[in-house]
């Protein structure tokens, strides 16, 4: 991300060649910061007191945020048949998602899903910048909920600043306790809901309330409660700035046509306060009245007028703030607005560009593959293991037996009747029950013997295939195995 240097920048000018363009002649010894001094190598965190703001983009955030929140808290309560509709059953190693139950064998599906998610993120980022960060990222959504709790317990921005500067007294304590209780309460709800994706919520909630849940359940609820509390209450923008990898590599997706939130330097400068009735041209001022509203609403505590910065999550709150002020001043809105670097530079801007189309294409192809795999998936799997104790059993001079254990995995959501057959061995005799009734989601172990007459054996090591299919014949799975017999002495 290049920096868009504003007119009043405090960025020092370096001692370069006069015209600054003769790079070959650049003497790096001359390039040094203008001021050197004793410093702390770690940055002290500046507290950010945000001011709430209403506006167009904030409304969009609410409209996208609420359904996601409701989905997060509501999904565990949905039932599908006799079980929870969305349940990641780790002990049974089965992920239930409505009509489909995924097994460890379906791991490639998860890979496809992650690839789709990645390309979708790339597509959106190339087109509209850090939309994910600003509108839908749980870090942002939960932080704004926590800020709202801060607002109703400790008051407005100025009241909070004052409160924090005050010495401890009863009122301060009361307000702080109220805030942290709200935070912890919401965090606990979040933690409980998260665990409810792994433990059926109806049992979990009852057990937790009756203090009968397992230690593991309590430990995980506590972990996610504290994680939520610390992340959304205390760390906030620090997560975006120092921890989040997406925040960093999204910058690599940006080009000149990517939507960014930017301040119109040309129109805004020179900034300065004025009376609402005053004519800025007469005062030699731009449209920016330097009210600091855009800074005060920013959840990452930056000044958007300094140009595009890596901290900016493009939440567009500064646009809402500035537009409100511009309306009050009866100026045109859009002093801060969604724009692109090319538009700023008054260059030809375009939306459809190869990079965007490429990402979009990749997303669509991956999604098509994913859906194809999901809907053509056979919910049946067969593993055949040879008995490990004996290579073969010899009944007499001519007959041999091999013992196998067939693991039949019913990955469907219904009980099934399966039947076993084999192909590739002439006149093979299967000893044992070839019919298996397997419950939904069960792994059924079926030991079977195969008996062969030496006259039918082409070699001492014959490869053949076991088949298992359900009675309707719609699901069929196979697995290869070997029939071993002694090497004939020549």
């Amino acid at each position, binding site marked *: 991300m290049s920096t868009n240097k504003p007119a009043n920048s405090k960025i020092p000018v370096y001692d370069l060649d006069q015209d600054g363009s003769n790079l070959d002649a650049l003497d790096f010894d001359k390039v040094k910061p203008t001021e050197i001094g004793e410093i702390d190598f*770690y940055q002290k965190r500046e507290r950010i007191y945000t001011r709430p703001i209403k506006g167009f983009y904030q409304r969009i955030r609410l409209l996208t945020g609420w359904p996601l929140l409701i989905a997060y808290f509501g999904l565990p309560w949905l039932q599908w048949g006799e079980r929870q509709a969305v349940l990641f059953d780790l002990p049974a190693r089965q992920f239930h998602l409505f009509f489909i139950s995924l097994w460890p064998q379906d791991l490639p599906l998860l890979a496809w899903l992650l690839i789709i998610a990645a390309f979708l993120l790339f597509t959106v980022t190339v087109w509209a910048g850090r939309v994910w960060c600003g509108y839908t990222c749980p870090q942002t959504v939960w932080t704004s909920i926590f800020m709202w709790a801060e607002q109703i317990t400790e008051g407005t921005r100025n009241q909070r600043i004052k409160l924090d500067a005050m010495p401890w007294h009863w009122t301060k304590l009361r307000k702080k306790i109220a805030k942290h209780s709200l935070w912890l309460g919401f965090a606990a709800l979040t933690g409980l809901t998260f665990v409810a994706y792994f433990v059926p919520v109806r049992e979990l909630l009852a057990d937790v309330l009756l203090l009968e849940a397992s230690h593991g359940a309590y430990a995980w609820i506590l972990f996610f409660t504290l994680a939520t509390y610390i992340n959304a209450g205390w760390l906030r923008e620090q997560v975006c700035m120092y921890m989040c990898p997406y925040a960093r590599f999204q910058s690599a997706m940006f080009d000149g046509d990517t939507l960014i939130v930017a301040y119109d330097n040309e129109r805004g400068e020179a900034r300065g306060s004025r009376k609402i009735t005053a004519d800025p041209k007469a005062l030699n001022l731009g449209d920016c009245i330097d009210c600091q509203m855009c800074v005060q609403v920013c959840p990452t505590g930056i000044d958007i007028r300094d140009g595009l910065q890596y901290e900016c999550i493009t939440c567009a709150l500064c646009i809402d703030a500035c537009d409100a002020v511009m309306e009050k001043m009866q100026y045109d809105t859009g002093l801060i607005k969604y724009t692109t670097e090319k538009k700023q530079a008054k260059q030809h801007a375009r939306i459809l560009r190869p990079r965007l189309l490429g990402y979009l294409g990749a997303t669509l192809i991956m999604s098509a593959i994913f859906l194809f795999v999901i809907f053509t998936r056979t919910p049946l799997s067969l593993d055949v293991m040879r008995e490990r104790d004996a290579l073969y059993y010899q009944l007499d001079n001519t007959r041999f*037996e091999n013992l196998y254990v067939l693991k039949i995995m019913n990955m469907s959501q219904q009980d099934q009747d399966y039947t076993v057959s084999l192909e590739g061995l002439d006149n*093979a005799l299967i000893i044992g029950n070839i019919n298996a009734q397997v419950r939904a989601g069960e792994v059924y172990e079926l030991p079977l013997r195969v008996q062969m007459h030496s006259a039918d054996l082409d070699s001492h090591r014959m490869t053949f295939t076991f088949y298992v299919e359900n009675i309707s014949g719609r699901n069929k799975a196979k697995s290869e195995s070997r029939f071993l017999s002694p090497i004939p002495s020549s």
Partner: protein
Amino acid sequence: MSESWSLYIIVLTTVMTVGVIWVLLANRRGTGSVDKTTGHQHDGIEEYDNPLPAWWFYLFILSIVFGVAYLVFYPGMGNYPGLLNWTSVNKWEQENQKAEKTYAEIFARYRNISVDAIYKEPAAMKMAQRIFANNCAQCHGVDARGSLGFPNLADNDWLYGGSAEQISHSIEWGRTAVMPAWGQVLGDKGVIDTAHYVLSLSVASQEPSANREPSANRKPLANKEPLANKEPLANRKPLANLPNDSSRIEAGAQSYQTFCAACHGADAKGNPLLGAPNLTDDIWLYGGHLQAVMASIQKGRAGAMPAHAKKLNADKLHLLSGYVYGLSRRER
């Protein structure tokens, strides 16, 4: 670990820990640019200096505190065992006790269901199948159909009786079977004659391969060319070298009544009290062809089923008995 190695590790760990602390503290402050840039500039792009947040520094401190506390409580400093006295063996024992406790409750549920009824409990049988696989399948096979010298447990033919009590007894206390060697007594001819007689007992009533249940799945591949060097099916020799020498059979019958009937019975149906097998059902523990039967008579056989009473707890034995009982009765 020898003392010198222990010392080496202690010194190394201490030096590293102190070193890390020194590096951290020595780089807390220093001289640098007081504006926000590093001074690097190229093509008009300046490199900002974005220092780590201060809480990051405290995380380092926290890690060091954690590390030191770990070394105090857990084994890490050479041979020093740590205040908690943690060892992997202790941990394993703890986990084992925990598991025993957890699973004991599950096993106990079936304690009061009798052996001859428990095989109808699918969940119990699933557990029992695993116990069988771990303790019995080595000899009897995972499908419990045995092999040469190890009885088939799924054919409803029992050497020591198939009642619930008899099966439980076999599993808990084991069985020792002895077929004496008759080679010296009978002589070579006597052995051959007796073997012929014994084999004739099964042939009289049954088809040779009746001990193996026939399967519906015997389907030959239609399109496969028969190999030239293969024996045609019709010419195959039957399971046993069927004795047709009536004089041998008659002589063998006399030897049988003299020497064998005491255990196997005058009608050769065996005696479960002794574990003497039925010789008329064409089920052969040690093979049913002439050579195998001759070897059994001549040299004798000694079979041993080990006792499991001390290897497995009562609940597991109970489930296992039910499983074996159900093998030839269960339909699934």
